């Protein structure tokens, strides 16, 4: 179902690019990427070129261990980050999150946008001395769509990347050799697409698209990417200390890297710390150069110059189940609930990590329109239906109760058993109960996996959930609320809304960025007027970055942190 959505979106993006960028795909990428740029945060963009990196490693805290260093198997941010430390793709992210040439020296894009020809750098080598060849990409990409490998991110090739035959191979209908990617010669890679994909080059920095050396892979067989000996580097660093699910990972600068001059750090040292108290103390002790800070600890560090809030891209919201819960089918009740929420208090008094209160269905700072402005910059555009107003909330509430013929309502809210959701859920409960007379909110916490399953099966009343953007277009959010989308947790259905979304993807306005933008706004308005979700806030992470460290690049999508240009004095 998600696939369908993605392909719809893809088509829309494709049409957008046709209009916007003509034959130059590279400028098309930058156009498409602009939205997300606004959110890129850089610890200190002024990449100081003060001499060669002085002797010591950068010590970084990780919240969770690496799940897999196999680029085609990894799915989580931690794994992506570490893989990207020692592997380059055809493209890499720059400080602003734009795709820039990495292993690819140049790219030729056919005028119809259906064929990409990548010319791989002559000086790109694996750490065992072998050159990086086009065949390495072909091998890796065929693995990614191979049903036997069952890569979770195969949809990056089919739905999002639209590479020829990818879908059929994933479905087992065609052999993986038929994938639309060929090694023309050692250093030339040709990719064929089903239809033009405006952001195709920006996918190239996504680790699922990274190359794997076939000979080396065969040699490692089942143990590929489970130890330093079974990984090959072609990037800024070389992995030299790792074991599966390790709590400590170490990488050393790769001197044979083609761009080794840019790399200032002699090494990179990761430490998994699951207890936030230990993490902060280690930072204070000087054992860490950067660490995540828990909400409670912000009081302790908020005056510190090293303290920063980094955009994480997620929109947190409450989804009401409108299919099975008759109280929540009532619009007045839903409006009352969303108006009774004091989002400001949640972010400033409880989370304290810089998260921003959000009153729109699409979060701020990630999708820029044709004129370059943020789709959700105006947080007051839906203030008739989404704001904090206790009096109005009570008014709607009483009206709703009257319509239902009830005097009191009890609702259960399910949420993840993690730190932030537990806190938010408690405040939400309190805010709703104190504002709305006769309402009781019961909380049920559970592991995330279980919560997702229950929401997808409509086995809930209210659900606290979050969604991270997959690409820089409002559609990554708006597409969720079309009828029968599995992530349309409210089971909401609106014919007009569905029509706008389909018009924006395949219809006439899909060709017209401005009209499409306006139509997307209309769609969002329909959803907001109907209180399909109660948006809460856009997530930020509070971090401490030691003042003698600069140049760590933060991104809300794909590679969360890039250290290639980091400097530690």
């Amino acid at each position: 179902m998600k696939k369908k959505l993605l392909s719809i979106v893809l088509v829309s993006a494709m049409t957008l690019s046709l209009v916007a960028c003509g034959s130059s795909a590279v400028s098309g990428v930058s156009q498409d990427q602009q939205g997300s740029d606004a959110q890129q945060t850089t610890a200190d963009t002024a990449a100081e070129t003060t001499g060669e990196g002085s002797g010591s490693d950068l010590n970084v805290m990780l919240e969770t261990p690496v799940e897999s260093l196999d680029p085609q198997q990894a799915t989580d941010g931690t794994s992506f980050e570490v893989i990207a430390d020692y592997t380059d793709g055809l493209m890499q992210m720059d400080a602003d999150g734009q795709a820039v040439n990495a292993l690819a020296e140049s790219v030729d894009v056919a005028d119809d946008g259906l064929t990409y020809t990548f010319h791989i750098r002559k000086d790109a080598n694996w750490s065992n001395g072998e050159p990086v060849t086009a065949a390495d990409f072909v091998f890796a990409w065929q693995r990614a769509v191979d049903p036997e490998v069952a890569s979770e991110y195969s949809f990056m090739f089919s739905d999002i990347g639209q590479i020829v035959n990818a879908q059929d191979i994933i479905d087992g209908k065609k052999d993986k050799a038929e994938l639309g990617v060929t090694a023309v010669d050692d250093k030339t890679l040709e990719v064929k697409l089903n239809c033009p994909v405006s952001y195709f080059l920006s996918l190239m920095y996504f680790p699922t698209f990274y190359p794997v050396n076939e000979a080396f892979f065969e040699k490692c067989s089942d143990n590929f990417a489970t130890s330093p000996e079974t990984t090959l580097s072609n990037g800024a660093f070389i992995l030299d200390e790792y074991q599966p699910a390790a709590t400590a990972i170490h990488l050393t600068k790769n001197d044979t890297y083609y761009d080794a001059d840019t790399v200032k750090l002699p090494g990179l040292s990761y430490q998994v710390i699951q207890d936030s108290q230990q993490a902060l103390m280690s930072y204070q002790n000087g054992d860490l150069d950067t660490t995540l800070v828990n909400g409670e600890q912000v009081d302790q560090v908020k005056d510190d110059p090293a303290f920063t809030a980094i955009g994480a891209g997620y929109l947190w919201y409450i989804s009401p189940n409108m299919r099975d819960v008759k109280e929540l089918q009532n619009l007045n009740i839903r409006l009352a609930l969303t108006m009774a929420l004091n989002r400001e208090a949640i972010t400033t008094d409880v989370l304290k990590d810089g998260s921003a209160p959000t009153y729109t269905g699409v979060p701020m700072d990630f999708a820029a329109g044709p004129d370059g402005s943020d789709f959700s910059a105006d947080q007051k555009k839906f203030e008739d239906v989404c704001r904090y107003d206790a009096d109005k909330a009570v008014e709607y509430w009483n009206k709703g109760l009257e319509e239902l013929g009830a005097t009191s309502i009890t609702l259960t809210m399910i949420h993840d058993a993690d730190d932030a959701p537990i806190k938010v859920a408690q405040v939400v409960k309190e805010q709703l109960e104190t504002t709305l007379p006769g309402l009781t909110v019961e909380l049920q916490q559970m592991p995330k996996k279980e919560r997702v399953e229950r929401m997808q099966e409509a086995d809930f009343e209210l659900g606290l959930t979050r969604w991270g953007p997959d690409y820089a277009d409002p559609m990554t959010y708006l597409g969720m609320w079309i009828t029968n989308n599995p992530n349309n947790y409210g089971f909401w259905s609106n014919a007009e809304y569905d029509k706008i979304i389909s018009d924006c993807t395949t219809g006439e306005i899909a060709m017209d960025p401005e009209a499409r933008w306006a139509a997307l706004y209309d769609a969002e308005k329909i959803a907001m007027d109907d209180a399909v979700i109660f948006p809460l806030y856009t997530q930020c992470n509070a971090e401490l970055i030691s003042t003698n460290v600069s140049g760590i690049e933060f991104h809300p999508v794909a590679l969360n942190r890039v250290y290639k240009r980091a400097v530690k004095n």
Partner: protein
Amino acid sequence: MRKYILKRVVTALFTLLAITLILFILMQLMPGSPFNDEKLNEAQRASLYAKYGLDQPIIIQFFKYVGNMFRGDLGVSYKISKNTPITQLIATRLPISIGVGFAAVLIGAVVGLLLGLLAAFKHDTVWDTLATIISVIGVSVPSYVFALALSYQFGFKLKWFPMLFSAKDVLGSSVLPSISLSMFTMASIARFTRSEMIEVLGSDYMLLAESKGLSGKKLVFSHALRNALIPIITVLAPLVVDLMTGSLVVEKIFSIPGVGSLLVNAIQSNDYNVVIALSFIYSAMYIGIMLVVDIMYGIIDPRIRVAKEGD
């Protein structure tokens, strides 16, 4: 004796088999699956299920699993460390956990014993009170609070020991976790030793030994201690197992790459194979310890051996 041990080992194996089956059934009941990420669609989930054989009936899964287990194959992890053979995951982690755990038992048993002896011999003096207070704190405060306090005081303030586990300094960085873990064991042993010793010291045979003119040291070690040891071992065995529980939390706090933290992560991410494998190992260790304790009884107290053999 050999026949007895053999019999016990065979029963233990069957018990383990039954435990594995129960774990399988429990896994089946567990809500969620390792593959229900929001970003996955139905078809992908189905293919992942097929890949790992999770689409087959549980009983087939079980027999396959047991079959593989006899060949030393515990399957692969689905989630926390994708496709890594669990044997490989455990190979590096189990020694670390056992090391820290063993250090904790050792510290706990030795210090506990000493404290208990001190309290018993200096009965009703300041020493007794002091030993009692220490042991009381040990049983009253959870180990993760000790972990926090020790790491704050000795790791952060005084910087005597590292706060986090480090492969480069295994010994130094194991000090704080081992001590935090040992507190409960130490306290329990101290209390128990004290009361056992007081009882033994007041017994008739001790009076007899004393009147025979045995010297202090010999009296304590060959008569009193040996008799007090049996009940102490009895309490030590379950304490060792409790230690495993504590280790789950302490490993998380000190970032120790052991099996305890692995198990917690696996449970939270529905990584069935890892949960089953680790639970199995914990069970095997537990049953193993119980077996050893039973055999040790036999060595310390021949009467039990005779009784058990007749069982």
